[in-house]
């Protein structure tokens, strides 16, 4: 991973804007920002962003690669799409934030222990295994993602919810074994593998 990071640093010779344009989902939009700040003001998690979107765009233009990619700001995106609908320049900000987050993760620069980063990975693994999300496994995995003792605490904290959900048949312990799934999981996984391969090739991550 980190040699991938090195590889990218060399390839783009410190031109971070160009790197973002070619490697980050919807990255070619970054240059269109006119620094009005409406995105930053529209974010429901706003106060939790060390660097709000419009500032991140400016940092990208100023080449502050390290600060941007190691920041946990992008991970604060709740995908509410407020920024997108209000942006006077039509930047797909939500997707750019997702893209930056993903890219940072691939480069191995995403902050360790970033809960959303972990959850996102769990979610992905969970869904790709069977093609459908298994909420119970996902839930438990989530609670235990910070180690066993942490997990016990969280599960206890969450047990009432679990109970409520179970009582109302909106959660089923039997899910632990079997549970929902696509039939053609092989096919699905083949598709995902292929897609990943194409994408990796595109962003110079072949073999990585």
């Amino acid at each position: 991973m980190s040699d991938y990071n090195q590889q990218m640093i060399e390839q783009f010779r410190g031109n971070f804007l160009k790197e973002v344009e070619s490697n980050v989902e919807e990255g070619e939009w970054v240059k269109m920002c006119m620094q009005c700040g409406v995105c930053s003001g529209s974010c429901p998690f706003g106060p939790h962003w060390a660097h709000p979107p419009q500032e991140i765009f400016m940092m990208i233009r100023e080449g502050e690669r390290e600060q941007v990619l190691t920041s946990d700001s992008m991970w604060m995106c709740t995908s509410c799409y407020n920024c997108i609908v209000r942006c006077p320049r039509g930047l797909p900000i939500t997707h750019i934030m997702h893209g930056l987050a993903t890219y940072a993760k691939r480069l191995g620069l995403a902050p360790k222990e970033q809960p959303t980063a972990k959850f996102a990975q769990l979610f992905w693994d969970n869904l790709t295994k069977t093609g459908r999300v298994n909420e119970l496994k996902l839930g438990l995995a989530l609670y235990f993602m910070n180690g066993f003792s942490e997990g016990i605490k969280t599960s206890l904290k969450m047990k009432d919810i679990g109970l409520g959900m179970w009582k109302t048949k909106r959660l089923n312990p039997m899910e632990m074994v079997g549970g929902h799934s696509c039939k053609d999981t092989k096919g699905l996984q083949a598709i995902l593998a292929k897609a990943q391969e194409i994408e990796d090739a595109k962003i110079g991550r072949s073999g990585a």
Partner: protein
Amino acid sequence: MSEAKIGAYICKGCGLGDRLDTSQLVTIAEREGKAAIAREHDFLCSEAGVQMIRDDIANEGVNRVVIAACSRRAKTDAFDFDGVCINRTNLREGVIWVRPDTDEDRETTQEMAADYVRMGCAEIKHMNPPTPNEKTDASSRILVVGGGISGMTAALEAARAGYPVTLVEKSGQLGGVAAELVKRVPERAPYADPEDTGVAALAAEIEANELIEVCLNSTLARTSGAPGCFSADIATESGTTRTENFGAIIQASGFKPYDASQLPELGYGKTPDVVDQMGLEALVRAAGDGPVKRPSDGKEVERVLFVQCAGQRSQKEGHLPYCSGHCCLTSIKQAMYFKDRNRDIDTEILYTDLRTPGAPGEDFYRSGQQKGITFVKGVVEDVASSGNGAKVKYKDIILDETIERDVDLVVLATGMVPNSGVDIEAVSAPNVEGAEDDAGDNGGDSVEIPVESILNLTYRQGKDIPQLKYGFTDSHFICFPYESRRTGIYATGPVRRPMDMMSAIEDATGAALKAIQAVENAKLGRAAHPRSGDLSFPSFRKEGCTQCKRCTVECPFGAIDEDEQRYPQFNESRCRRCGTCMGACPVRVISFENYSVDTVGQQIKNVDIPDEFDEKPRILVLACENDAYPALDMAAQSGQQYSQWARVIPVRCLGSVNTIWVTDALNSGYDGVVLMGCQKGENYQCHFVKGSEMAHYRMSKIDDTLSQLNLEKERVATYEVAITDIERAPGLINEMAETIDKIGMSPFKF
């Protein structure tokens, strides 16, 4: 002009009949006003009423028409008769609408109306219909000074309308600054890419146009005359001079790029790799289709940084206090020079406020971003030579960080300095023109102004067009942007205000129209704006003249020169008919056929002055017809009231007020005098630019006269009144009434 025969017509409509004893007014018109015919009518502006007047003009030989009805601002289309003098005695807005309809007020209201009828008849007795002084031999040829984009456009557009043009250009080629540009900011949708400057095409079209004569390497050695009959000596470098006549002049003398060597703090001079925008155009032109090289060592430019507002929008000594308007777009265009050659070249634009207005501007900005130009809100802290290009330190205002950049080239967006010739008011400010000094303080002198004259006018008041601010020759720049203070001479392009090529082309086309208009006006002996169409013009009695020169000094339009015997020499087609000369003349020898010391003086004399014990004071109100008088009209319309003692006389401009009117009024027993003119000073609204200012200056001297008469100085008040002062204007009259209440009646009643 045949014997004056007055017809007075008193209207009974709009409540006049109910509120006034109109038959008494008829009698007054006949007995005191010496009206040959006096009639009342129920509805004077109706077909029948107007026909009645027409018949009297046709059959009875009436040639002086007094219409005692509504304000001169109403029903103009109805009361529009040829070949006669018309007086609009204002009984509606001027009397019944500003007085309460009560029994105790009836008497004074009637007295008001009676006085106005007297005044109307008195005025018209001394009016003559102006006889147009047509100049059939007036020249239609238009002189364009300057061969840049503005000048070329003006010349071509005038020629396209069928007018012959002589274009005088100082240098050896047409095109001016635009000719030095590689490309221009786009003028056409989608406003995405730089366009050809069009200079070559324009020049070719001019060469090809047989109506246009081009004089290169030429300047104006001497310019005299007036619209329709300007005479200019066109001098060539080779020393030959020829004289030609012109109908009008367009000054398109353009601008000089600001001298960047005054900006060492931005690195100019420290390294050749810091250039101004014109410097960059030169580099790009030198590069042809190839890569742009940096001046220091010819290395290909890979990183370039543009600095906006270089030495502009700044009160610092030697900087330009204004924004030059075009620089943001120009820098975007110049960054595109690089991006269009090679997308990988880093182009960064450092700005504080990016100014790309309208649809063309904002589209071009977006296109610049599209092409990968980086925009940074920031301010330069330091530019130094790095031995390898330049090292720029700047504050990124968004990130609130100081950032260092090594770049191959720094481009300074410096501003425009108008090429407006001699600042005649700085050279010799007549002691009366106090206001100009503040204009100076506001940066007027922080802008270096070239000393050589552009026009070399032989005008008494100086060689060039007066300037407004920062050396720009602008005038009434909001409503009437073309009105310079030299009739028939129109400034256009960046000499008027900073502007980009697109506005310069619009501006020059408009200026061409104004020049054409000046020619047509001169042919018919018609006044130009704001008294467009006025056929009257001032004349003076040489016998009486003491050669004091006040008229020649005070004319806001430099219309009056001096002849060899030092007598004033009126240049009619330069005159705007404001009457400031008439107001200035201490011996009262200047007058218009239909506006003179008498037409007003006689109105003042003919007001009935009750003796002291009647407790009926009289207040003379001299109101500028442009703003104060309409304000009083609208006050009446909106139900405001003012003192029954007031007698209002509209004047063309407060500048036309001759102090004799004030002293005569006081001598003959008026208790107070109120003068209402337009705002003066830097943001003047006076339509004759200096008239109101002159009046205020003259009135500031009236105190001596008052003390001689030993009258309280509160009896004369001079105000700046705006057309919107609908409450204030009547209020000022009422204040005077109260003042008189306090200090008592004038002792000068007989």
